[in-house]
């Protein structure tokens, strides 16, 4: 037998390396489940905060195990066994009930989806980073007329001949001195035809006075024991200059419009908000200086703040043109397109009391030469496609605005993950139909496909 002490036993980096691998798998899992994460209600409805908890699928050690919860439900077998002093009726522990599941009307505990998820806490910014890689605003232009000047802080870029000693730029000063002595040496050599070495010694001996140096050589009074060095004259001194730093930016404004009329059910509003929520969070993260304006409308549109936009509900009739009109007005008064990149994103269920008027206003808006108009229609009615085709627009009236737009302009169509997507490249006009949570992510990707501008 033996005992050995290893106070400094070297740690292999293995633990850390494998932990990184685990971290990477979490990232991959988030990326893979992006459409689940994106429709995670708790993120969108939460109070503002930077960290969110999201469920991540597939990172458990799966093997055959028993479902002990079923056993608890099935018979009167008790939830478990403990030991220690006490009496019947004592509370030996407690747990918080899960949001969905448990209790009357909820799912049975055994069916909880939570079972195979692990929760991980991540930053919203981080989520955006991994979910929206390579996305951005399309068709962005340099609006040369009025770059926005943004103070960034202070910088030391400029060099001047005047200044105070603490801001002396030593390197630049030395450079100037070397440059000047090189000129002096050249002149001495031309004047006296001596070697560079002699000229150097003479200049040092004459304490940088060029005339005296020439005299010294001519009179052969050179003291060859002197080590030559470079003198720094007042005129060589250079100082760093402090000044305000500014940055130039392409101006961009995103006008987010949402239908809050009575026909927008809780489900529809939720889809609408999750689309705009991620759009806004993404823009905030990616573009420091993008302005975001929020418009809600029923029969009448108003500009509201972000909090109201995302958290207040309304009801009433629907005039879609009111929102478009408000956007046009905003562009005319505050964000002229000569100076601004303007992006308009509108979400509605398409139920419009006056689609013809809306079309007229959209034409007006497009005339403003905006960078992009995106219209997204929420359609949660679960009817089979065959019926939709058979009845066309006569089925309900939820297809009116989309239908009216499609009659007016031509679009190329495509689908991704079940979401219908349409585009008109000439007018920079995008359409999409969102039928369920799964469509939010592909539509976002469609709106934010920045390569579009290049072809």
């Amino acid at each position, binding site marked *: 037998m033996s005992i050995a002490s290893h106070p400094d036993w070297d740690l292999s980096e293995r633990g850390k390396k494998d932990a990184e691998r685990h971290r990477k798998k979490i990232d991959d899992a988030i990326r893979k489940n992006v459409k689940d994460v994106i429709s995670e209600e708790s993120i969108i409805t939460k109070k503002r905060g930077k960290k969110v908890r999201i469920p991540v699928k597939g990172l458990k050690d799966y093997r055959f195990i028993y479902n002990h919860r079923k056993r608890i439900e099935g018979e009167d077998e008790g939830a*478990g*066994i403990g030991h220690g*002093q006490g009496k*019947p009726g004592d509370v030996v*522990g407690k747990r918080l*009930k899960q949001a969905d599941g448990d209790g009357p009307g909820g799912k049975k505990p055994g069916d909880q989806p939570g079972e195979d998820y692990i929760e991980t806490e991540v930053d919203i910014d981080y989520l955006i980073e991994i979910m929206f890689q390579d996305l951005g605003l399309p068709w962005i232009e340099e609006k040369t007329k009025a770059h926005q000047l943004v103070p960034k802080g202070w910088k030391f870029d400029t060099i001047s001949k005047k200044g105070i000693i603490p801001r002396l730029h030593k390197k630049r000063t030395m450079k100037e001195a070397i440059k000047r002595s090189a000129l002096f040496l050249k002149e001495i050599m031309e004047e006296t035809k001596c070697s560079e070495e002699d000229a150097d010694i003479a200049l040092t001996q004459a304490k940088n006075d060029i005339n005296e140096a020439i005299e010294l050589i001519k009179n052969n009074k050179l003291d060859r024991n002197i080590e030559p060095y470079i003198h720094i004259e007042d005129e060589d001194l250079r100082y760093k200059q402090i000044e305000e730093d500014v940055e130039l930016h392409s101006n961009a404004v995103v006008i987010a419009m949402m239908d809050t009329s009575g026909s927008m059910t809780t489900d529809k509003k939720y889809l609408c908000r999750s689309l705009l929520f991620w759009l806004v969070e993404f823009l905030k993260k990616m573009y420091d200086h993008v302005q975001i304006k929020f418009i809600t409308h029923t029969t009448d549109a108003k500009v509201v703040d972000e909090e109201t936009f995302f958290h207040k509900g309304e009801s009433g009739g629907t005039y879609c043109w009111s929102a478009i009109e408000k956007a046009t007005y905003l562009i005319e008064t505050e964000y002229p397109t000569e100076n601004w990149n303007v992006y308009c994103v509108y979400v509605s269920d398409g139920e419009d009391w006056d689609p013809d008027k809306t079309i007229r206003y959209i034409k007006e808006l497009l005339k403003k030469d905006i960078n992009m108009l995106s219209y997204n229609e929420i359609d949660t009615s679960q009817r089979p496609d065959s019926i939709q085709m058979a009845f066309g627009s006569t089925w309900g009236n939820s297809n009116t605005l989309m239908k009216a737009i499609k009659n007016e302009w031509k679009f190329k169509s495509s689908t991704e993950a079940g979401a219908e997507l349409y585009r008109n490249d000439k007018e920079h006009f995008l359409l999409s139909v969102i039928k369920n949570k799964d469509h939010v992510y592909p539509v976002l990707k469609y709106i934010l496909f920045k390569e579009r501008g290049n072809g």
Partner: protein
Amino acid sequence: MDKANLRKLIKLEDRMKQIAKEDLHLEMYDVEFDIVPPQKMLEIMAYNIPTNISNWKKGRDYERQRTIYENAAAGLPYEVVINANPARAYLMDDNVFAVQCLVMAHVLGHVAFFSMNKYFKKSRQDIMLIMHEATRRFNEYEKRFSIDEVEKIVDAGHALQLHSSPFVSEETESEKRKRVFEQEKKRLHTHKSGGYADISASLKKEVDEDVELFNQKLWRKLKLKTPVEPTDDLLRYIIDNSSVLEDWQKDILEVLRIEGQYYWPIIKTKYMNEGFAVVCHQKIMNKLFEEDLLTTEDHAHYNYSNSLVKAELPMSINPYMVGSALWEDIEERWNKGRYGDDWENCTNAAEKEHWDTGEMNGWSKCLEVMPIYIDWFFWQDFLTADFIDKVNLYIFNEEDKGVYVDYVRTKRAAEDVRRLIIDAFAHSEVPEIEIIDGNYNEKGEMYLKHRWAGIELDNRYAEETMKHIFKLWEKPIHLLTIVDKKEILLAIDLNEKKEEEKKEEAAQSLIYY
């Protein structure tokens, strides 16, 4: 640990060993103790075996342990013992001296358990070396075939590794086939020699008509049958019969199977093993105190740590506490003759209270039990109602209290508690899954059966585990089990899914042109 203390510890170690062997009559392998810093301990804990292979799950556990340790300065064990010959034990270097002694005595208990219990006899004693070599080879595989490819196999191996008990028969398939052939022949032909065989009349006729022909038919049938008999050893069968595994993949699975066999007896004897080690450390430490080899201050440290180890847990069974109490109960009962019919049939409480035959056989009874039991039998044979009341074991139930669910202690009788514990250990940890057919539907699909033991499987886990099997088999996997009291056949076919994915990819490629 400073040098003086280390020297003292080495001296005490000799004495401890002597006590263990001479006073407690324990047999044990040599032990090599390594005193290590907490960071190393974190790593050893996460990897189970210090030389274990790299994998994201180990990384996850390591990170979890480290977070607990760094934030709460808790979560580290006093020791980790590796069942090998010589055994290896890792001790924390910040244990105080008395605790270090306690831990060493505790380790001796574990090593005796490993050395003497028959369920450990088949564990590979060179497990450290095996895993060390495997780590080296697996790194090579990662370089050659990518980390993702290696991970796929390792994750599948981990999912199945506990399904290879060390007690599976070593028979090869062809040996099995011959044996089954003989058995079947014997069974089917016995009616001729006047014995009674439970076979149908038509079959009887067939057997009688042409024995040779019948035997040939039987043999042909057996040749097509795979596995010849249902098998529990999932990895063994998959390694030997999968048509898609390459040698390096089989190598990975072989290693993980050996690792699984190493864990198997540890899992099955956890309560006995920990309890036994506690009893040993108490006996050895008490002897050291008797012999004045430790100070009063040491005694205080020891008492405190010992009480922490044996804490009562309101919502689970502390193996250190309940396990050791059960061993002590056995020792006391056999010291005082409190067993057998006389004891059981005695109804006089006063008589029972003072029952003592003075036979003093307690410890030898323990040494008789220790080598041949696993937890389940242990509870079955020795968990008495008296004991349950003595250590206050109880059942708790859930009560819905609105936002919270309360766990509330019930007043169920000791007999109920006993039945529940034994039930729970009957199917502790690993459900029994057997491979019935490796050529199901005659398309090489796999047919598994969950051997019913009263509790349903977690379906979600079963499904994911079947996906792991699919990755090793690449044909549909079926599992017969019971869901909501009805027998159902689950099936997994990842090839189907791939078709869907392909469609989706095609749809996506339409978009950006």
